């Protein structure tokens, strides 16, 4: 395992030291592993709180700041934070108007945030569980779909809505609408290496790739032969378009890197995705190309498409000032 770390056991703590050093405008609670904005939540503003396992940076800590999250809680690598961490963030971020929990749909995340909400007496908590990954079939008999790329777009959009003064019910309703309007699909060329595991999560030959991966270095739904970027784009876009109709209005499209794939390839992939969307009559109104929700050093990418409308685009375009996403300010 080749990593720039001191000790697999202290990766998260050491990295948060760097976050605090690099971002004096944020406040890091090292004990509870929470990144807060530098100033407390404005009285009357709904607080937006998210979190999950580490290893997906800049998600979530890199999205704390004006116009996006009020607090982000980090668990160990790929391990949901614990209820008391989430409870601390919930109480710490509440500005009296309640707290929205943004939770990616993984059993661990859902359970730990659920317990935290139970513990957070006195705070009005609403929860949105993102589940946008079309690689997984939706069913009430299973854990359902994973929450992936839509989480990034949702944090931006509801962050702006909260900033504008929408109340908790309205913010939560918007969050659910955004989640329902977005779909994602991911793929990997390589596995990642979890520091504590010390070796790649899976082995894969040079001529194969994994289609339908999530963001935890897990194998995907299918192992298929390596293919040209144009074909990879098709394998990502087709299941998304088959799952929801994105025509007839503007969309926000994210081409996300898994952490180990350089920008030159991500832009190349976006070019291929754009061609397919143009051909399918899917209007691309806003784009995001880069590493936003990653899986440590995994090579690969994912595509997220979100059906937008005037309200969603207004909140998307609103100012945001976080380490990972910044504009208008």
């Amino acid at each position, binding site marked *: 395992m080749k990593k720039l770390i001191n000790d697999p056991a202290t990766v998260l703590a050491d990295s948060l030291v760097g976050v605090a050093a690099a971002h004096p405008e944020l406040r890091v609670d090292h004990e509870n592993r929470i990144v807060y904005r530098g100033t407390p939540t404005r009285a009357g503003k709904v607080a937006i709180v998210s979190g999950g*396992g580490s290893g997906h940076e800049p998600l979530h800590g890199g999205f704390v700041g004006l116009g996006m999250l009020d607090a982000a809680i980090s*668990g*160990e*690598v*790929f*391990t*949901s*934070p*614990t*209820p*008391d*961490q989430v409870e601390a963030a919930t109480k710490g971020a509440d500005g009296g108007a309640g707290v929205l929990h943004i939770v990616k749909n*993984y*059993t*661990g995340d859902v*359970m*730990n945030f659920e*317990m935290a909400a139970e513990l957070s007496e006195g705070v009005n908590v609403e929860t949105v569980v993102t589940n946008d*990954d079309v*690689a*997984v*079939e939706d069913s009430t*008999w*299973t*854990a359902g779909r*994973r929450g992936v790329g839509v989480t990034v777009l949702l944090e931006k959009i509801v962050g702006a809505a909260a900033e504008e003064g929408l109340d908790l019910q309205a913010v939560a309703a918007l969050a659910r609408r955004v989640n329902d309007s977005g779909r994602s699909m991911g793929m990997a060329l390589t596995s990642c290496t*979890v520091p*504590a*595991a010390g070796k790649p*999560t*899976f082995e894969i030959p040079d001529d194969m790739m994994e289609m339908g991966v*999530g963001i*935890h*270095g*897990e*194998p995907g*739904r299918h192992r298929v032969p390596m293919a040209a970027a144009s074909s990879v784009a098709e394998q990502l876009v087709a299941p998304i378009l088959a799952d929801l109709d994105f025509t007839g209005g503007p969309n926000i499209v994210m081409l996300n890197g898994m952490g180990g794939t350089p920008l030159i390839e991500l832009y190349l992939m976006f070019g291929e995705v754009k061609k397919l969307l143009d051909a399918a009559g899917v209007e691309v109104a806003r784009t995001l190309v880069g590493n936003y929700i990653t899986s440590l050093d995994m090579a690969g990418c994912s595509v997220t498409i979100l059906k937008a409308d005037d309200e969603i685009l207004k909140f998307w375009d609103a100012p945001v000032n976080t380490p990972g996403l910044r504009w208008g300010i």
Partner: protein
Amino acid sequence: MVDVSIPQLVDWLSRFRDLVTENRAYLTELDSAIGDADHGSNMARGMGAVMDKLGAATPATADELFKTVGMTLVSSVGGASGPLYGTFFLRFGTTAGAVSQLDAAALSAALHAGLGGVLARGKAEAGDKTMFDAMNPAIEALDAAIAGGADVAAATSAAAQAAAAGRDATEPLVARKGRASYLGDRSAGHLDPGATSTAYLFTALAAATA
């Protein structure tokens, strides 16, 4: 029938800690195949924290002991296994009550309560390829042994065997709960990591009450 004392219960936890720590890499390897390669770290971190806590001060009654255990797991593990094992021990303790020893019936009742906690949190059913598939047969075997007149040692030994068999039976299953469910058919052909750690839980119980 011999009762299970507080020191024996602590020994159970200590042996469980030893087993998940020794098999940390193995549990993580199982979790690499169908999960996210952290079950060994999670269990070793959690049980390490539990034994540190108990080392500082061991409660004298089962309710306090297992409240400490459950809370420590909940607040140090995270992921799926933290709330599941945490809730297991919390409910185990509540049902065991403020006692300093458990007879076979009390042990069974506490284990059933723990299992109920896992079900309440995780909503898994038999055959979903989770820790439930080791835990449920283990408790059934314990009950059957007790019903058949076995003492605690024999009953926990039967439970350990049933847990191991339940663990082994997860191999061919297609997961329907937890992270392995995302793999669909590819989850078949692998042991479930949580069922494997649960088998250690009952191995440890059998050894502590032997």
